[in-house]
């Protein structure tokens, strides 16, 4: 019995030391990790809304839709566009895309937030070709509106990735649907005002 207490004590001691050490490391890294998380979102938003000031993008929730409003200057007076997250089911995951549009609902930029598609196939939605600096698949969307937005196989204007039509379609369709909804929501809101 005594033995168990003693052994338990030693184990507890070690665990306590470990816990202590970890809480110190945690305290040091925590801000950094949170910063990283923020940076990811921030980077996505600035890619989506290149013309907006990075400190002047604010989240809005309306009619069950979460989107962002982007302003040109930090005083948030001159609205330049909106951003939202489109999500659609791809081949093996749900693909989430941050999409930015200007006030005429023409796409200004986008970036993939989340996808676990097949490497080499579905992941080509993020492929940056050698010698280029931006992903070619996503670049196609810029300057387009939801109208007619579809992959070529469905008769649309987006060249799909060979062998990954499902992923291409998921991105395209989710943006198409999301954009349509955003426009409706925003216009409704405007007319309310």
């Amino acid at each position: 019995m005594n033995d168990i207490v003693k052994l338990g004590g030693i184990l507890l001691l070690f665990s306590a030391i470990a816990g202590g050490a970890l809480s110190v490391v945690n305290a040091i890294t925590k801000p950094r990790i949170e910063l990283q998380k923020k940076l990811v979102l921030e980077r996505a938003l600035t890619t989506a809304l290149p013309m907006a000031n990075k400190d002047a993008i604010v989240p809005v929730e309306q009619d069950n839709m979460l989107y962002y409003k982007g302003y040109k200057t930090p005083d948030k007076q001159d609205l330049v566009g909106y951003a939202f997250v489109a999500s659609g089911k791809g081949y093996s995951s749900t693909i989430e895309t941050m999409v930015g549009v200007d006030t005429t609902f023409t796409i200004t930029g986008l970036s993939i937030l989340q996808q676990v598609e097949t490497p080499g196939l579905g992941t080509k939605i993020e492929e940056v070709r050698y010698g280029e600096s931006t992903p070619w698949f996503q670049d196609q969307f810029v300057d387009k509106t939801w109208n007619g937005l579809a992959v070529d196989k469905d008769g649309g204007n987006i060249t799909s990735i060979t062998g990954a039509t499902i992923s291409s379609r998921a991105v395209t369709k989710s943006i198409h649907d999301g954009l349509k909804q955003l426009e409706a929501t925003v216009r409704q809101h405007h007319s309310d005002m």
Partner: protein
Amino acid sequence: MEIKALLIIAVNAIFIYNFVLSRFLGICPYIGVSKNIDSAIGMGFAVVFVMTLASMATWLIDFYLLRPTESNIFYILFNFKEPPDLMYLKTIAFILVIASLVQFVEMVIQKMSPGLYKSLGIYLPLITTNCAILGVTLINLDANYSFIASIVHGFTAGLGFTLALVLMAGIRENLDMAPVPKPLKGAPIAFIMASLMSIAFLGFSGLKIG
């Protein structure tokens, strides 16, 4: 619908994201304990059992001890200003829980059912440091599964593991008697076989229920 969601978890865990063939978890026992069907079945059941229990236990630990929510016991007990975020202790907490769980299960089975102990007992110690067990608990956490979903996932992931293990054992019993080229005998041919098996399991990829 809840039932459908659970079914999807199950099908995913057994066939599409099979622990061994797609997620690469539990490779050591997959190669090590697959030389004979009977021990494969024994190991399989031991893993199913421990995975289910571990999923249950770690969910409770996570929900009541680690997560910064209102139901955090430290928060309730010690009247902290805000719920403490102890998520960084998850690895250490989970592994200790699993280790003690296996010990405990071993003791209980030994007392309650010597027959079961005889067939499962020898596999239990092997399981403590098996990454499939810790893996399933970490995946439960990542996927934010509910208590029930965690249990279902733990159970079915174990079944998926057992499936791959027992199929492998059947094949290796024959392979044992085949003129496999000498350099490939043993582990190499087992991995080549695993590769072919996982090619066949690609057939399940993209499966969508409902």
